[in-house]
């Protein structure tokens, strides 16, 4: 990524400083290379998704080139999340094998209760009468009786889709953020700046030294 302005590595890193001095952040500079890491950054931290990485600056005439190599635990976990939910689905299927006989027994024993009558006010207002005994939807009954793996399958699918979205969206946002920071046009929410300052002061004792550069 490059911008149309000639910056020395020191000047470039100074402009990136607001992104790297938030709560839980640490970084070190060696020549034209900056290495950073973030320990559980705040929700609104602009680099919340990419919690570690290396940034190097190269001055190319009138341009400044920023090379970055970043890592994301969040994206990795999102990639793995479908496996967890597929595991839950399998667990539901296994649990059903133990649960089914009991459920069938209960269903057989279930007494057909007389349905309650609708209050005259509701009848007058046109509310439908309660279901008669034995009228219940069989499908609904089945759902009640067993663990359904459907939700787990759906969630596995959602997390797979969410990974694809994140894999495209987050690098794009990162590039935009870094470009704005280097150009000096990045605006951080006032509350975040305030939060970070307060958090740096107040959470340091709790998280053992993070928040220091």
């Amino acid at each position, binding site marked *: 990524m490059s911008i149309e302005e000639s910056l020395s590595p020191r000047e470039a890193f100074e402009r990136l400083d607001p992104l790297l001095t938030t709560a839980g952040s640490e970084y070190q500079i060696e020549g034209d290379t900056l290495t950073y890491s973030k320990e559980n950054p705040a929700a609104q931290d602009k680099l919340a*998704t990419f919690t570690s990485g290396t940034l190097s600056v190269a001055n190319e005439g009138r341009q400044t080139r920023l090379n970055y190599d970043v890592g994301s635990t969040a994206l990795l976990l999102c990639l793995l999340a479908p496996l967890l939910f597929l595991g839950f689905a399998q667990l539901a299927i296994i649990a059903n094998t133990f649960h089914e006989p009991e459920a069938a027994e209960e269903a057989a024993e279930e007494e057909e209760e007389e349905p309650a009558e609708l209050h005259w006010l509701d009848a007058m*207002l046109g509310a*439908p009468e309660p279901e008669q005994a034995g009228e219940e939807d069989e499908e609904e009954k089945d759902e009640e009786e067993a663990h359904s793996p459907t939700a787990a399958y759906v969630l596995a699918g*959602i997390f797979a889709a969410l990974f694809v979205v994140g894999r495209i969206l987050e690098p794009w946002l990162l590039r935009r953020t870094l470009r704005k920071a280097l150009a000096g046009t990045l605006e951080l929410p006032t509350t975040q700046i305030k939060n970070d300052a307060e958090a740096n002061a107040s959470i340091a004792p709790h998280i053992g030294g993070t928040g220091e550069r």
Partner: protein
Amino acid sequence: MSGTRVGNRIIGADAPVTVGWENIGRVEGGPIKQFVFTYFQPFFLFSFIAFWYYAPNSIAVASTAFAMALAFRILLLGLEWVNPRYDSWRLTWKEFATDLFYVGLGYTILRMVDVYIGDGVIIEFVQTSFDWESFSWFTAMPLLVQALAISMIFDFGQYWMHRGMHNWYPLWLTHAPHHYITQLNINKGAVGNPVELFLIGLGVGGFFDFLPRAFLIAGAIGVTVGIYQHINVRFNTPAWWRFIFNTTEHHSVHHSQDYEATRSNYSATWIIWDRIFGTCVDGEAEVLGMEGGRRMDIRETMHFPFTEGYKSTKAWLGQKLKPQLASDQHREPAE
């Protein structure tokens, strides 16, 4: 920070909290936007109630309720994007993915566990242990009365469970991770340790017999009122609504960084319970969380109640045994 006196308490002495409806923000924009964000909440509440009141039996089933709740949640996610209450609470990809993980736990593994040790089992035990026939007249009441009774009884139980969590250390250990959220979004209600999510889901409404349709209407009240606890949308909520129902403003006070403010607004749906029991604070807060706004990650959320419980117990035992050990050391050796 001086804070504001509310009853016998000083609210906002530790961290900023806005107290009083006259001081909170309003929807900014043209007349159409003002109209939409003023009547959105009542419109959907009454629409949902009317739907469940008149829906034919073939439609009035749990799967329809699930689909409607999901669609409504997606609509509210859209509103968070269009009209956020605070920019500092904007939903990011990472926050959404994290929240969804907790939602996912609720719909999968927790639901499975709930079958064996949840409120269904407790209710069955209580129902078989006592004669509840004397309460069968509940089903003869008008549907809306039944629905209100279910909703209010359930919320009454939640109020005391939640208040208990803020006042009894073992329960607090399970609830504390939820208070590490630093912004409110539509799925943040699911964020927390699974033990807490299980406890807060225990309801007492199910002890009594009601018509199934009344349960669906009560559920609709929960979906169209309780859901606003954790939402980043600015509404011009009507005064009558704010008086009887919980709102995101109330709940943001509960989640603020001010200790005294967190000990208020415990109900999930009916803020009227807080008014009755003297724990209601009308207002709002933007800066949320614990330990100065430290975000708690998923791993810590999962083990926090157990590791903190272990540390606290160890420290407590240490305190208890210390004088004993000290006195033993000073004792003269036996001859």
